[in-house]
Structure formats: C-alpha cells, structure tokens
C-alpha cells in the first residue's frame, strides 16, 4: 500500500497535477507518525509512511492548506473522507485546490492498547502481516492487530470513501457496526448511575484542548473559550461541574456535524471516552429525526439545521422515559 501511495504521489508531483502532498511521515519509532506536507519526491521517498498507525485524520489540515497557492494531494481513509465531505459541505475547504486519493483501510492501531497488553517497558514494535510484534526487555509478544485497534476502528462505521478523485485499493461499503451498543448501555443506567459515570470519566480531564483542536467539526477560527472578548473565555473552569459542561457544550456544538471520526477519543491523554457523548447525539438524531450520517454526502440537510412540521417536540426528551428524568 505504502509503495503504491508513494508512486502515486510521485506521479502527481512530477506531472504537475499537484504541488504538495499531505500524508504521514515517519518518526523515531514504528508508531509515532506525524501528519506532514511533502513538496518533493525526495522528501516522499525519505519520510512518507502509511502503516497501522496512520490513524491521524488529515482532513482538518486542508482548511488551511487548500487556501495556500497551488494544489495539494491528500490521502484519505474512509472515515477521514466523511470528515472531508462534511467540511466541504460547510464550505471550509476549497475543493478545487485539493486532489483526493482515497485509500482502503483495514483498521488502525492504538499504541496504548499495545502497551497494556505487553506490560511496562515497551522497547519496540514492528508489523508482521496481520500482527504486531512488540518487545520488552523480558518478552516478545505477537499481538493480533484486531486486538489493538483504535476504538473507532474496532466498530468501524464505514469502509466507503465518500469523496475522491481516485482510489488506491478497493472501494468499500457502510458497515454493520455495533458502535451504539455502549451508548445503549449508558441509556439503560439510572440517571444517578449515568451522572456518576460521566462525573468519574470527566474528572480526569486536564483541559488540554486536544479533543477540540483535533476535531474537524471544531473549525471556528477562534473558539469562544479562547476569546478574551467573548465573555465566556475559559482557560480554567471555576469548578469541576463547569469543567464537565465544557464537554457537553462542545458535543452540542458539533451535533449533526460530528461524523464520529473518533479523533477526540484517540488523542485524549486521559482516555476519556468522548465518542460516547457524540454518539449519544448521533443515536438520538437517528431515532428522532430519521437516519442521518454527517459527511455522507453534500446535499442532505443536517437534522438540526432543517425544519419539518413533523419534527419531534423538544419535550420528547422529557417524556421519553415517562417523565422520570
């Protein structure tokens, strides 16, 4: 795959289709890849990499990159292509300046899951077919890739590449995914249990803003919480409840635009399952307004930006459980 991608990028640079290529570059180890713009064939050959740790979603970088002079090629995995399409829909990316190469994806790995399996003192990781081989001073373990997939990959919603100029590998389909199971489990809790669950999860937040800054749906030029003139700037919350509200507000703000790309949960240093908040919104939207998938196309109106006479009444949330909540 990586070879074909480098060959394609080389061709596009050489024949003048694009001036730059957005991809992933190698790090110190096998798993610490960094998103990067390549502007020459030699840079591609030296550093371009696509492996089981190319999880980072490149779409958001295109907001800035597509506004620079010239044209840029980008490699998008299926889930990234939903983010890309959603950003197009919101007029955040200049489509004419981007050449999209969709790439087939069989799931990306989570290095922290590898660490949890192998125990402390990870020394090296390499790939062997569908397995990763992890080494410590005392042990070498062969780990099935399927056991260490990123959460979003373990419940992959779609292998379909929504928007592309060409494909490398096979086009896929929307998947049967059990990504809402965990949400259903939370819904089945009593309000007190659920409150406890979230208080515990969110209590670990250090408000590093990684979740917000990585999020393709969080594309405001200046977030209200960073803006000194907004009246709600919020570098630190007054109390832990206010801190919790930050996440709920953010989830509201991205509701019906969040594609469930999973980046927020991937980057959270404290492993807070932020995807469960967003998925709750997605599930509710599906149930209340009919199935809707952000980023799946350019035309369907998002539920929260559309109005029909048979839209549910706001009180439905209250009434749903017999008014108990």
């Amino acid at each position, binding site marked *: 795959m990586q070879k074909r991608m480098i060959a394609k990028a080389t061709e596009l640079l050489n024949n003048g289709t694009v001036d730059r290529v957005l991809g992933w570059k190698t*790090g*110190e*180890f096998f798993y*610490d*890849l*960094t*998103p*990067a*713009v390549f502007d020459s064939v030699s840079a591609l050959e030296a550093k371009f990499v696509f492996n089981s740790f190319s999880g*980072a979603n490149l779409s958001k*970088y295109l907001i800035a990159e597509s506004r620079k002079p010239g044209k840029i090629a980008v490699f998008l995995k299926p889930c990234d292509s939903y983010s890309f399409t959603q950003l197009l829909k919101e007029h955040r990316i200049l489509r004419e300046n981007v050449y999209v190469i969709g790439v087939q994806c069989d799931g990306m790995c989570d290095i922290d899951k590898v660490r*949890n399996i192998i*125990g*402390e*003192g*990870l*020394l*090296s990781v390499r790939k062997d077919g569908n397995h990763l081989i992890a080494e*410590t*001073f005392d042990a070498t373990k062969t780990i099935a890739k399927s056991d260490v997939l990123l959460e979003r990959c373990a419940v992959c919603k779609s292998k379909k590449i929504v928007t592309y100029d060409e494909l490398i590998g096979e086009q896929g389909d929307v998947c049967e995914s059990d990504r809402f199971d965990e949400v259903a489990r939370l819904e089945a809790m009593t309000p007190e249990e659920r409150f406890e669950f979230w208080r*515990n999860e969110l209590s*670990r937040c*250090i*408000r*590093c*803003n*990684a979740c*917000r*800054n*990585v999020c393709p749906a969080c594309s405001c030029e*200046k977030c209200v919480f*960073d803006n*000194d003139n907004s009246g709600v*700037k919020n*570098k*630190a*919350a*007054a109390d832990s409840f206010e801190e919790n509200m930050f996440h709920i507000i953010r989830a509201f703000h991205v509701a019906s635009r969040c594609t469930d790309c999973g980046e927020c949960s*991937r*980057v959270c*240093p*404290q*492993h807070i399952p932020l995807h469960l908040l967003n998925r709750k919104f997605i599930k509710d939207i599906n149930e209340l307004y009919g199935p809707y998938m952000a980023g799946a196309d350019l035309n369907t109106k998002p539920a929260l930006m559309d109005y029909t006479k048979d839209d549910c009444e706001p009180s439905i949330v209250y009434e749903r459980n017999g008014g108990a909540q």
Partner: protein
Amino acid sequence: MKKLSLSNLNDLFSAIAEKENLYIPTDNSVGQAAFSLWSDGAVLSEKCNTVRSAKDLFFPQVENLVNFKVTGKQIEVIENRDPAEPFVVFGVRACDLRSFDILDRVFLSEPVDSYYRTRRENALLIGLACSHPSQTCFCTAFGIDAAEPAGDITCWMSDDTLYWRANTEKGATFTDSLAILDDCQDDPVHKLQEDLRDRLGRLPLHDLDLTGFDSDNMIKLFNSEKWDELSQSCLGCGTCTFICPTCQCYDIQEFNTGKEVKRFRCWDSCMYSNFTKMSAGQPRPTQKERFRQRFMHKLVYYPSNNEGIYSCVGCGRCLQKCPVNANIVKVIKTLREELS
C-alpha cells in the same frame, strides 16, 4: 539501609497514612497511572510512570489565590489558599524528582511563590527507582540516574522486597518513626541498580546528543528554517505542556461571583494563541513561534539562565501523548543536524 517485604507494603502505606496524607501512583479506571490519595487497599501501580507528573501536587492546574469583597468604599482581602498540611508522595521517579530542581529555580527565586513554597516545605518526597524503563525514556541524556532517584528518601524494589534509604534529615526522622522497616545491607540494591543501568543503556534514546543547545547557538537555533517543518502539524493543543513535569507557566484570572471576586491561577500554555497576550498584543502570531518558544525555552533559554541545566528531564510524556507525535526528541534530532 532499611527493607520491607513487599507483602507488607499495604501496612507500610497504612502506617504512613496514619501520620500524613499519602499520595501514591495507582492505576485508574482506564488503566493509566495517576497519583492519588491512598486509602486502605489501594495498590501501587506498576506503570513506568504516571500520565500527570508529581508536579501537579505542588503546582495544581487551578488554585485560589485570594478573594476580594467590596462593600461601599471598602475592599476586603480574603485569604483563601489551601490549608498547609504536611503530605507524603511515594513512588516518584528520578525524572520527576529532577523536575523539582527545575521548578524550584523558578518558583523559589525572588519573588518567591509562597503557594508553591508552602507545599514544597510540607511535602516529603519518596523516590522510587524504575523497574521498567521504556522506549520513550531518555532521562540518561540529562545525566539523571533512574537507579539513584533523589528525594528525602529513595526506594528500590525487587520482586519481593522494598529497599529504603533516607537521604535528608527530614527523611531520616521520618524513617525512624516507622517501626515496620527492618535494617539491612546495601548489596541487594547494588545488584538492582546494575540491572537497571544495563537496561537504561539499551534504550534507543539513551545517548541523545544535546551538544550545541546553549546560549552560543541561541540566534542560530532561533532562526533555523527547520521550525516550519517541525511545527507544521502542531495542533496548538497544549497537551505537551500540561503533562510535562517542568512546564511552569500560569495565568492569573478573576471570576466575579456577584458577591465577591475570586482571583485564581491556572496553568497556561505557550502553545495557546492568547498566551502572554498583553497590552501590546500577541507576541507570537502563529503556531510556529509558539512551538518554537516551548522548545527554545526548554533547551536554550532556561539553561542559559540556569548554569546550563535543561528544563527537560526526558520523562517521555510528550513522546507518548502528543496527538501528532511532534515532540522534543524530534526537535532535538532535527536541530542537531543544523548544528553539526
């Protein structure tokens, strides 16, 4: 030297906790290590290190500084700082212990930060030699010996025994008050140290070369063209600064409750767009300058002002947690190419 069978570790913790609040690294509900207040039965984490460093117990993310209450023309100043209570932190790694030297030089030099100083004076630090250094550890590059952590007391752990040595007077007095510890010889510790040092020497980043990161090269490093490439994908999130044991920047803010004004301080990050935004405007207009500031501070400015001591301890947290894997090792290696 003292020792204790590991099967009695809970009793040791319990004996300490009877005297003072005790913090130890435990695994949280998502399997990551975090310093937490010990309660009976809490198990010491086996992780190489905690996600948040021991710094947070001394320089918390948010803390009250003072409250003001206005009545008529009177302004009442209300002290509301945390009560000063003695506490013990067990299980601090050598890298995090070194970070206190770095923080002390900032917070304890004039004008002294009394909030930080109070906590430092009230704390007893118990270092723990590492058992499982990992790929991302590079304390050795800064001359830190993970087999000889500093602190008031140093501990080592074999499969079945905890070894304990007091380093300071405070540590010795504390040790004397713990009847549960038995006397023993130094030899087993030497063996543990040898094994650990052998492992440290086999880590991929153990000999990371820092030659040239000094004030002589300040301008050259500052003007390097590599910063564009290095900072290109940085999200400006601030994760690296918040988990770093040596990052020390804060902001002072006020919150009007309607009844009074609460003045508090909170962590700030040089990676943020409104960092050090003063009347003159934003001194660092793009992410490139912000990114450069973080690493120039750690590798050039701080050592220039502090006898060559770098303000990185090689704990590897930013290597593990940066969402895009832009980190200090990559910066060092890339800029080194410029210097040679």
